């Protein structure tokens, strides 16, 4: 049991370490216009630079408009996914741990 917990702790620590180092070393790079800009937009910028004549022939039908609204919608996506994931894990846990019969008090 303790070995299992140690493994879990070590795996979590590895995750924290990866993103800690990413934030620390990544901020020294100035390859993108904005620090930690998305690679999707970096790729788009690269296309516009190499093929300045290319005109995107279709526009998104809906645009969140601001970074705030967009981050809210991303949070909604994560929240929806997290809710379903939590429900599924909880329900599976319930299958393995049926509620004990109430003895009354």
């Amino acid at each position, binding site marked *: 049991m303790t070995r*299992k917990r140690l*493994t*879990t702790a070590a*795996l*979590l620590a*590895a*995750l924290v370490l*990866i*993103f800690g*180092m*990413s934030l620390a*070393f*990544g*901020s*020294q*790079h*100035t*390859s*993108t216009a904005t*620090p*930690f*800009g*998305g*690679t*999707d*937009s*970096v*790729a*788009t910028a*690269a*296309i516009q630079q*190499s*093929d300045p004549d290319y005109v*995107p*022939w*279709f*526009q*998104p*039908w*809906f*645009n*969140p408009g601001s970074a705030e609204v*967009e981050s809210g*919608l*991303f*949070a909604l*996506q*994560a929240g*929806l*996914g*997290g809710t*379903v*994931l939590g*429900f*599924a*894990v909880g*329900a*599976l*846990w319930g299958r*393995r741990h049926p509620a004990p019969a109430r003895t009354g008090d």
Partner: protein
Amino acid sequence: MHIAEGFLPATHCVAWYLASAPFVIHGGRRVIQQSKEQPEARLLLAAAGAFTFVLSSIKLPSISGSSSHPTGTGLGAVLFRPPVMAFLSTIVLLFQALLLAHGGITTLGANVFSMGIVGPFVGYGSWRLARRFGWSDRVGIFLALALADFTTYLMTSFQLALAFPDPVSGLAGAMTKFLGVFAFTQVPLAIAEGILGVLVFRVLLDIAGPELQRLGVVPALPEAVA
């Protein structure tokens, strides 16, 4: 890995749609079949879909100084086979294309091909190979998630290079350029996704052992075999 709306020539958009469609349709059928044949595995199916939904919404910083998101498709590919993930990834990508202006309707076929088809197939293949080599299921899960994530971005780089070859260095030059954007950034993220996958898989082994056995993910206990 989202190729932005309108950023592939129309012929490419059609070609990627045609390439992805059979996998997605087959995957959709498999989802229905799966939930009918093994209703007890529905919760795991929901968990696999939700895992991808959450992970693809989180943009994480990388050592390259840019940020990108994991895909989370390797887990579902191991549990339910790759075509199911082609279908589930299409739902995720549609959501992002319609509500978040991430990716797009025109580039949906191409994005489904990288995230929903190439990634899951490579992830599942790595899992099977790890199994054949006799490696532990933890190592297999790590490789499945990390490689599904990484190869998704390799595919995106290839798709963009194919559409926008360099005037001087051609396809190879453009491929190098787009790999420079995606690959380096994705390495730490893919490793992190692999580690997260191991954590989630350990939880699933605890709470869904019988379901995982029936799906053939982990070997069935001798007494459980009829």
